[in-house]
């Protein structure tokens, strides 16, 4: 476990080094982050004033905060790693990952990160924090909700990675990432806000409810702690499915010839 944490830390260290390698890019990303953050805060304040569905503005803030965090996670972690995975498949450099004495799925999922999603991560955390503060959430609820949201992010990533395994047979991982990120964007509203068919899709096909709505409900104290266990089991199940899918994909992987 310590070994994997060390790899994670070193990979993050390299990602940060990559951001700062091109200084103009770094400052542009930083500026964009600040401007977008300001935009989101203005938008959410307007949303709170108008009211969303039957939610009071503070609860809406929590939903939107969690969804914004998820969006940031997709842009800064999920997207770059899935694109890197797809590039490795195309260029035939997946071999270097497969030859390492570590779990290749872990290595592929934690290879890199991007600065560009930081906007959403910051803004999401602030919105969530403000919402919870205004609602007077207790430390227990915040802790359980944060744990559930972390598990939800892992669940969403595993779902996206499972879909990206079609990269063994297709080259359109880019489109897939955008599609999945868009679907998880729907989680900024409770799934009950959607038509029954869409609601079923976001609950049983794409795990938007499990990954986003359930953690928010835990933040808001609307669910018992047992829901976290359920979420953990869902993560475990999807992890096993990803490993199975990866093993299956490898059987078809012949790599690019030299």
């Amino acid at each position: 476990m310590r070994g994997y944490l060390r790899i994670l830390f070193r990979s993050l260290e390299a990602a940060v080094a990559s951001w700062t390698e091109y200084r103009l890019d770094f400052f542009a990303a930083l500026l964009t982050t600040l401007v977008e953050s300001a935009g989101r805060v203005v938008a959410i304040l307007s949303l709170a004033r108008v009211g969303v569905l039957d939610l009071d503005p503070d609860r809406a803030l929590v939903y939107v905060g969690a969804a914004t965090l998820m969006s940031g996670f997709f842009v800064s972690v999920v997207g770059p790693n899935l694109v890197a995975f797809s590039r490795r498949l195309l260029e035939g450099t997946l071999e270097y990952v497969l030859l390492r004495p570590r779990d290749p799925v872990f290595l592929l999922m934690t290879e890199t990160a991007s600065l560009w999603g930081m906007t959403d991560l910051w803004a999401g955390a602030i919105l969530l924090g403000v919402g919870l503060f205004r609602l007077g959430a207790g430390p227990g609820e915040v802790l359980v909700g944060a744990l559930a949201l972390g598990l939800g992010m892992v669940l969403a990533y595993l779902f996206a990675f499972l879909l990206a395994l079609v990269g063994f047979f297709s080259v359109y991982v880019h489109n897939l990432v955008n599609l999945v990120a868009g679907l998880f964007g729907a989680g900024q509203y409770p799934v009950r806000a959607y038509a029954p068919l869409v609601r079923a899709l976001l609950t049983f096909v794409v795990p938007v409810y499990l990954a986003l709505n359930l953690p928010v409900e835990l933040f808001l104290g609307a669910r018992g702690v047992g829901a976290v266990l359920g979420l953990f089991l869902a993560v475990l199940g999807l992890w096993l499915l990803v490993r199975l899918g990866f093993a299956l994909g490898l059987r078809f992987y012949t790599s690019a010839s030299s």
Partner: protein
Amino acid sequence: MDYAIVAENLSKTFWVAEKEPGFLGTLRHLVRRRYRRIEAVRGVSFAIRPGEIVGFLGPNGAGKTTTLKMLTGLLYPTAGRAEVLGYRPQERRPAFLKRITLVMGNKAQLLWDLPVLDSLRIQAAVYEIPEAECRRRVGRLAEMLGLEGVLRQPVRKLSLGQRMKAELLAALLHLPRVLFLDEPTLGLDVNAQAAVRDFVRAYARGEGATVLLTSHYMADVEALAERVIVIHKGRLFYDGRLGQLVERVAPHKELVLELSRPVEPGLLAGLGEVKEQKGLQVRFLVPRERLVEAVGQALALLPVRDLAVTEPPLEEVFRRVFSEEG
């Protein structure tokens, strides 16, 4: 005798989709795909002792890389058995992966935008090399490769030769016992090729490592390997000493004459097969048993200013052999 690498009747078959050109071909390809069975490797057997450096040769598409990938566990053999350091490669056990490396001359693993040291730090974490030990190894390998001054520069700023050396450094940081080198000098200039060769030789000697090397540059093979394994169309063609291979597949010597003035073409044809004529310099291929006679004839009949007898380049030998084989 324990062997470091064993291949026993190793075979690999692929199914490759084929498509006719044009719009109709594309439509057919979309609706009903046609596959062709390709036997990339067919019953190849060999065994390599610990510490041996073996050249693995063959024309493009002969099955070299496929064999290497089976030996490293990247591909599952369709039939036969592979064993490396007592492990079955396709099981890809961590203990096995920690003791081998694969270097592909045309594929990079270093982080493009970052200094080499950043990639090495990740490698060290992956292979659980302690910090101090990592510094010691990097220092020693970088000195052997002449890379001391460039490890803090972004990889994209390095020359091709420096990049390849840095790739080698990253691939050998965990001090593997078996090296699979697939075209490690591809695209390098003569000096860089020589430096890579010297390093591989020194590393293998120092660590007692076993090396299986594929290369299109015969100079690599001549400099590093006493033994060569040649495969052609997926089958084992030759396994033995390099010198014996040359004698077996090249029954000719090369005779180079420098003439003092032009002569009738008919006079040249009698000496052997004229391979090349550049001004007053003529290159012949002469059967080994006729060499003495041909030299005598040349000196007697032609205005010879200088004369040299050499082995034909290995590239040419293989080109002749494989084109005769079809």
